[in-house]
């Protein structure tokens, strides 16, 4: 059987870049999808040169949903061209403006939801029948601890991720029947551009470690995972704080 292919959605992010390299190191082919074509082309040559696997780049904008049919068509064609291995999906995109920026411009709320949630549903829903048909494969999507509880600091982004978590639960339920696994990974603090220079961070994990964990979870067919794992404890505590108290806090 030929090597699997990973479609990486939002491939310019630190975690996605690390994921593409890790997957290629394991011999998988890679399709990089995102908006910054120049950066994706550079990322693609990097993966190709380092690991000698097949790599392709496809333009993808989560917010422009009427392009998603064509996008999924192109991805299917590329994946078939790579060989008979199954198509897998790593979803790493999202838009997280400062909550204060959203408060000043409610249109940003709409964009955040489109990019983080609606766009994700749109593309995954178009990929689902293909995955069902192939009868195997993995979907790994980055959720967020922000989706576990609405907080004053980023509740619009958090609500979009919460929506994504629920969608992934349903998708898992559906694809399980045809042998496809769906894993929700909720990262804590990862050392990315998003967190660089943020005060008060602790035990920050590297994007490489996160990427390796995502591949491991996929291979196991894990359902929901926090990374690093101790975030499960933190979020369990945060989720259990009664609302009358929580509304007074600013964590």
């Amino acid at each position, binding site marked *: 059987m030929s090597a699997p292919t990973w479609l990486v959605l939002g491939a310019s992010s630190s975690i996605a*870049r690390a994921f593409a390299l890790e997957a290629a190191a394991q011999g998988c082919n890679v399709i990089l999808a995102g908006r910054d074509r120049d950066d994706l082309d550079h990322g693609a040559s990097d993966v190709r040169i380092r690991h000698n696997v097949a790599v392709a780049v496809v333009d993808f904008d989560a917010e422009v949903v009427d392009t998603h049919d064509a996008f999924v068509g192109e991805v299917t064609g590329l994946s078939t061209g790579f060989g008979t291995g199954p198509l897998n999906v790593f979803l790493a995109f999202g838009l997280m403006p400062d909550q204060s920026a959203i408060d000043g411009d409610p249109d940003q709320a709409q964009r955040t939801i489109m990019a983080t949630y609606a766009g994700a549903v749109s593309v995954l829903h178009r990929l689902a029948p293909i995955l069902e048909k192939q009868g195997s494969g993995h979907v790994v999507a980055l959720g967020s601890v922000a989706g576990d509880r609405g907080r004053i600091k980023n509740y619009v982004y958090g609500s979009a991720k919460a929506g994504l978590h629920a969608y992934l639960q349903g998708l898992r339920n559906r694809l399980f029947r045809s042998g496809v696994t769906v894993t929700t990974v909720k990262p804590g603090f990862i050392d990315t551009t998003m967190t660089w220079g943020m005060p008060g961070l602790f035990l920050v994990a590297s994007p490489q470690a996160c990427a390796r964990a995502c591949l491991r979870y996929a291979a196991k067919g894990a359902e929901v995972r926090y990374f690093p794992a101790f975030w499960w404890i933190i979020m369990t505590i945060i989720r259990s704080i009664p609302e009358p108290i929580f509304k007074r806090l600013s964590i």
Partner: protein
Amino acid sequence: MTWKTMTLTGWGRTRRAEVAACRPERAPAAVRLLQGRFDRGILAYGLGRSYGDAPLNDGGHVLLTERLNRMVSFDPDDGTLVCEAGVTFDDLFAAFLPRGFMPPTSPGTSFATVGGAVANDVHGKNHDRVGSFGDHVLWLDLVLPSGEQVRVSPTERPDLFAATIGGVGLTGVILHVCFRLRRVASASVEVRERRMPDLDGFMAGLAEARETAGYSVGWIDGMARGAAMGRGILETAETAPTDPAGTAAKAPRKRAVPVDLPGFALNPFSINLFNQAYYRRVPAAGRTRTLPVRQFLYPLDAIHDWNRIYGKRGFYQFQNVVPDAEAPAALRKLLEAISDARAGSFLAVLKTLGGEGRGHLSFPMRGYTLALDFPRRDGVEDLLARLAAITLDHGGRVYLAKDAVLDPAGFARMYPRLGEFRQVLDSIDPDRRIQSDLSRRLDIRGAVA
């Protein structure tokens, strides 16, 4: 772009710097960054494997290049690679050794970046054969202090090219490097080790090896005195025609030093024991072994963060080169000064260099180079000053990538092309937007014209 306040050190951990650091992940972001305003200059910082203050800019800004590490293009016909400056030698070995290529030359650690290799014009154990890293560079993309991006090569803006090779980062931020990898028949080397009883014997052995061997390096017992002074092990090596069965191109196993060792762990007694054992582990008749090339090139990389064995105060590394004709007298004086000081040095490294590099501030010259580590203790700075003085007396120079203590006058005498270097910097960086602790300490830019 967000600036993060952090503390950086050189590899020897004797010098620290509080900096505002940013870490661009894409090349265009790095170009934009350099257009900002910096009161105390900005400097590119790779992985901090320079020992002293060359990679530091205390109180100023630094641009971390570690995430600018993409490989851009590779031609398997002639081994030409274009990569971003944050790619490490470890990356190069991982990607290319299985395909029969390796870097043309390499410093003593694989955790150095390609950008750092250019900025320090690094050399390896094959300098007599292939020269230093800068000799293999076809062109560079550089972001000038003005924020302008330019390509430089031996034919395009050759002055700026010569200032950048070995220019300790002062011409701007190196973005891309194009250089040629070397084709190798295997991932292994056949290493021959022989005991050298004293300094004269050692120098004769190295003189012969530089003409005949692919790689050569000597390990000297820096504690040995009297007739045994300068004794040690001479290693010569050639690329093996094939890999021994079952070894292939596997990456070596790595261990880490989990904590700083206490200051007393390394003392003259323990170091002496270690050096003795190192000498005696090679039988009197010598021996020949086949080793994975990385194990041969990077014996210390097997232990991550090995600099922690020197404790919190850190250590100095001293490396100089003296011309062939002066070497016998100079090396004797250097070794005497070291053993007199009882400073306690782990194995000293002695090897030959083949000739001058292409950069204005390139370290190599034809001669003998000596490198030693000294735990940082009271009085060791005096010893280093003494070693620098001996080096100067004999027409040699000290390696900027290792240095933390040289003074401006000594530096200017060691680097005769400093005038040319200053001219280039005055034209591309009149406002002195690129600075480092090293450039200020050694007054590399000179008085304002």
